[in-house]
């Protein structure tokens, strides 16, 4: 992918290389490079880069290596150079027959990237006259070609993690990969640390067993913890073995700034409407601008607003994951051809194919993490010798602080720390079934193989046995399903899939991406109730929380929800200026721990405030006078009355997800203490609980002890109680059940849509939770909840950190710092989330309505 860029700019870079090479004689490394290659480089007026030669040298020594390089550094060519050289040498020594298998396997998180890289690889191979067959294999590859590839594999195969899982689960695996020499893992930082990465790591462990000589090459952007990725590249035997690391020369430092809007910086919200004209002016001044936002809905809104003021009729496009695939491809193509002036996009463009023409990145809203910001900045201008340019546009006052912290982090090259995690057990279950489909396996041997993969290096034998047991019969303490086993232990002690139907099921369910059920959004026609055109798709759970008449923004318009028909949401255009339902309030990504610490540090150090915009500076000054500032390590808690209600606002800075979980648990506790909380709101920085009881008074009279309220023991029974009915937990469980193969993606099989799936897995969750709370799938779901939608681990770290360090300030009125969270249009959550209370309320509400109606009629 980078090669296209190299093509145009290599000459300039070469000059810089030789200038900056210093004592390093460029020709020294070249000795490794065969004549054909040297001539090819020279013929194009290029010189191979130091890290490209370095990687070649490591490969010659038989070492696996991680290459850390910025985009545009010729990373992909570096990864393939050793393979191209070997294949060239192999073809010259033609007397021996060509080994039949794949020589190099390239794995990318995106199939579009695999296709793009294949194209860019074919050109040098062709120009050097290398007789190398390069092919891709993705979900789009026709079945005939896939079959042919199994029979007659190419030299270089470019594919995705899911295809690897399918290939190694077949009987052809040994034939295909027996001669494998190298595995190139592109964008490894994006795969490692996810379930998809877990599955891939297990696949690589199997590939290593088939071809013990194979080396790995990891290609990665800069990461905080390269050692984890280095461990990924080599088998973990004693634990801690690492591949080599090669770090390419960094490109020019990025040119970063924060947009200091002339307009009033809003207290809350995520739309950055106040900076609209300035964003538009930036687009006008640059050739091609990528405008990143954090959620689809923000993308929708901003796109709509930009077009409203688009007087010059600039070609501005929209790109996000909910849009139709063909539409996304059209945008990408137009972008590649330089026909667009700007694209408003979400992280759907964080990774992937590069467009040389992008000269500015605008990040609207807070970046939430410094690593993501660096990735996005890297999307602009891939000329290594010129700085990438990026402008951050904070959407509210807290985001000003966050943007400032992120700028400083990026300038210092500081990355978010990786969240420590273990390989997921549901993914392991899928892999175990796949291995039983491939051939009969010995449990002991497979255990050792699995543990050689970095994410599973610490896997206990017990967990492994539980997973195998789960795959076989569901793994229940009640041994009811022996006769329905999916894999069986044969007389020779080896495990084998019980029948071909199970293998078929496995193939249909492979992969770790569990899509949420999507509903089409269709405009209801004024005349026909069958409606007009489809605007796109939304996640079902979003619609679940809407009542008819609610308005929301989608496809650049404010829409009114009418009803759901089959798998469609029927909507009408609305005249409402502001949607009632705040779509996805803050953003998908919670504030990273790393960035949160920097924001706290910024708050705690008033001497640094002078560099902040005046309004923000003033805001913090007033907070300091009226209340207090959150310290670096303590937890500021304010209590105050307002509008007939009493509020408790805490500032943990642990991100929206952890705050939501905390809010659920705290309101449960307050309810038990008889303090009757009514609900709460959260943002990435703070949490506000409100109710009718005077909390300042309760604290003064020692009826409420904040230390006890925030005690970490809430993560015990309170959490368990809440998890029993938490919709987020049920969603997490469903994903584990699908990935682990308990249920099929189209469970129970015949239903016309997956609506029933959601319901059924909820029922399964309820039953399993009550009867076997320690079941391996529930363990997997809890592990996900710790870092996923409920962010429990982060909450737990915080509670431990602030123990005995609660700084309570009773106030007569709302504090400046509390305003943003109070304005958060988040949905009100009833104390304890008790649906019984909600039902009673719904019933009362309706009775009252009915009585009111009767009164009107009678009067």
């Amino acid at each position: 992918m980078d090669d296209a860029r190299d093509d145009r700019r290599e000459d300039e870079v070469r000059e810089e290389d030789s200038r900056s090479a210093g004592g390093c004689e460029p020709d020294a490394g070249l000795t490794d490079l065969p004549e054909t290659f040297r001539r090819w480089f020279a013929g194009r007026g290029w010189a191979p880069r130091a890290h490209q030669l370095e990687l070649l040298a490591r490969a010659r020594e038989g070492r696996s290596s991680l290459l850390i390089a910025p985009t545009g550094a010729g990373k992909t060519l570096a990864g393939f150079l050793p393979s191209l050289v070997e294949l060239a040498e192999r073809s010259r020594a033609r007397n021996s027959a060509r080994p039949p298998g794949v020589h190099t396997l390239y794995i990318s998180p995106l199939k579009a990237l695999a296709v793009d890289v294949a194209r860019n690889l074919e050109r040098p191979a062709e120009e050097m006259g290398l007789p190398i067959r390069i092919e891709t294999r993705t979900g789009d590859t026709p079945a005939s070609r896939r079959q042919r590839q199994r029979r007659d594999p190419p030299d270089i195969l470019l594919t995705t993690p899911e295809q690897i899982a399918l290939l190694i689960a077949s009987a052809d695996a040994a034939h295909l990969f027996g001669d494998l020499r190298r595995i190139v893992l592109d964008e490894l930082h994006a795969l490692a640390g996810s379930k998809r990465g877990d599955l891939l790591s297990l696949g690589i462990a199997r590939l290593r067993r088939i071809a013990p000589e194979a080396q790995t090459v990891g290609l990665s952007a800069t990461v905080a913890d390269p050692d984890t990725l280095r461990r990924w590249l080599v088998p973990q035997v004693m634990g801690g073995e690492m591949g080599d690391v090669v770090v390419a020369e960094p490109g020019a430092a990025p040119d970063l700034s924060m947009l200091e809007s002339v307009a009033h910086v809003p207290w809350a919200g995520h739309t950055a409407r106040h900076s609209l004209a300035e964003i538009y002016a930036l687009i006008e001044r640059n050739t091609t601008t990528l405008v990143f936002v954090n959620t689809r809905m923000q993308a929708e809104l901003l796109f709509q607003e930009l077009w409203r003021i688009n007087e010059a009729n600039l070609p501005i496009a929209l790109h996000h994951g909910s849009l139709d695939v063909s539409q996304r491809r059209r945008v990408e193509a137009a972008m590649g051809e330089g026909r667009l002036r700007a694209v408003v996009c979400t992280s759907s463009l964080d990774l992937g194919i590069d467009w040389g023409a992008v000269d500015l990145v605008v990040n609207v809203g807070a970046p939430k993490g410094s690593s993501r910001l660096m990735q996005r900045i890297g999307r602009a201008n891939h000329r290594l010798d010129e700085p990438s340019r990026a402008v951050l546009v904070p959407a509210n006052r807290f985001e000003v602080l966050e943007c400032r912290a992120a700028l400083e982090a990026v300038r210092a090259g500081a990355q978010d720390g990786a969240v420590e995690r273990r390989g997921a057990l549901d993914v392991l279950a899928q892999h175990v079934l796949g291995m039983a489909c491939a051939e009969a396996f010995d449990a002991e041997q497979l255990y050792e193989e699995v543990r050689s993969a970095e994410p599973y290096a610490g896997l206990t034998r017990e967990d492994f046995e539980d997973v195998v047991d789960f795959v076989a019969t569901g793994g229940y303490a009640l041994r009811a399903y022996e006769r329905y086993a999916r894999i069986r232990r044969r007389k020779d002690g080896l495990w084998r899939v019980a029948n071909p139907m199970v293998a078929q099921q496995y193939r249909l369910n492979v992969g770790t991406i569990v899509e949420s059920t999507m509903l089409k959004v269709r405009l209801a026609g004024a005349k026909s109730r069958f409606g007009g055109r489809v605007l796109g798709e939304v996640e079902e759970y979003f619609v679940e929380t809407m009542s008819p008449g609610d308005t929301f923004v989608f496809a650049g318009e404010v829409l009114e929800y009418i009803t759901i028909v089959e798998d469609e949401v029927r909507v009408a255009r609305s005249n409402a200026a502001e949607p009632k339902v705040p779509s996805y309030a803050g953003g998908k990504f919670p504030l990273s721990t790393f960035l949160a610490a920097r924001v706290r540090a910024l708050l705690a150090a008033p001497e640094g405030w002078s560099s902040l915009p005046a309004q923000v500076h003033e805001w913090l000054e007033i907070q300091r006078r009226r209340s207090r500032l959150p310290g670096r390590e303590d937890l500021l808690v304010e209590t105050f009355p307002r509008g007939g209600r009493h509020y408790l606002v805490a500032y943990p800075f642990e991100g929206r997800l952890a705050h939501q979980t905390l809010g659920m648990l705290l309101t449960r506790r307050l309810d038990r203490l008889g303090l009757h909380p009514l609900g709460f709101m959260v943002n990435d920085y703070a949490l506000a609980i409100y109710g009718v009881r005077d909390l300042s008074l309760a604290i003064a009279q020692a009826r409420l002890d904040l230390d006890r309220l925030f005690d970490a023991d809430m993560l015990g029974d309170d959490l368990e109680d809440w998890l029993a009915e938490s919709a987020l937990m049920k969603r997490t469980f469903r994903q584990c059940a699908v990935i682990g193969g308990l249920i099929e993606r189209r469970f129970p099989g015949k239903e016309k849509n997956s609506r029933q799936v959601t319901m059924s897995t909820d029922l399964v969750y309820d039953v399993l939770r009550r009867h076997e709370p320690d079941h391996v799938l529930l363990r997997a779901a809890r592990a996900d909840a710790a870092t996923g939608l409920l962010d429990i681990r982060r909450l737990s770290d915080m509670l431990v950190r602030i123990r005995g360090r609660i700084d309570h300030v009773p106030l007569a009125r709302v504090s400046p710092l509390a305003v943003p969270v109070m304005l958060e249009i988040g949905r009100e959550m009833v104390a304890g989330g008790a649906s019984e209370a909600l039902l009673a309320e719904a019933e009362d509400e309706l009775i009252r309505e009915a009585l009111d109606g009767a009164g009107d009629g009678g009067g």
Partner: protein
Amino acid sequence: MALEMAEGDADGRAGAGEGIELAGAWLTLDPAGGLYWPAERLLVVADLHLEKGSAFARRGVPLPPYDSRATLALLARIVERTKPRTIVALGDSFHDGGGAARLGAAERQSLAEIARGREMVWIAGNHDPDPAPELGGVHLPELAIGPLRLRHEPAQGAPTQGAGAVRGEIAGHFHPVARLVVRGRGLRRRCFATDGARLVMPALGAYAGGLNIRDAALARLFAGAYAAHLVGAARTYRIAHHACLPDR
């Protein structure tokens, strides 16, 4: 209309559950999903779908094998609360024909304890049309007592008003659920659905899915307004049909 029902409710709220009137018979709704007729000391439950888990396991989907015991535990609680003389299981008591034979020893034991000293009536359902003699009790296609007619599937093509109207029918089969959105939270609960002439029972089975009461298949059973009585932890909640949200 809604008002009248609300008043009816208030009067009838006595004893174990909410009281309703069906074709002149006074019935109470057990919060867990049973229907009790005090005058006859008769308990009606529907769609237990016992052994649904093992039915799936046979097809390579090993759902947790605890559904039968969960369902029977619920039934035992309802029986404990209502102490009926007769229990009528309104069909689809087993998920499939082989279900009764697959029932585990412990579950068989719980079922025997529930039925001890009572009369068990198994109404035929579409999932379990044939009797399972090993379970005891009587197996009937349907049952008529006084003004009430108990059957698995509601009578076809018979509305609850006009000539030839159904009156006093209690059926299962449809697994009604009601969906509400309260304060931005979506809720989905099993429910009784009734218009005073006909009543459709909630499914009791732990793995029994649900059909929204606004679905045409359910709505057409009632000639006009009807109400959902949502099952709850300690009581049922009555919501008029038009206040419940349709799914699709």
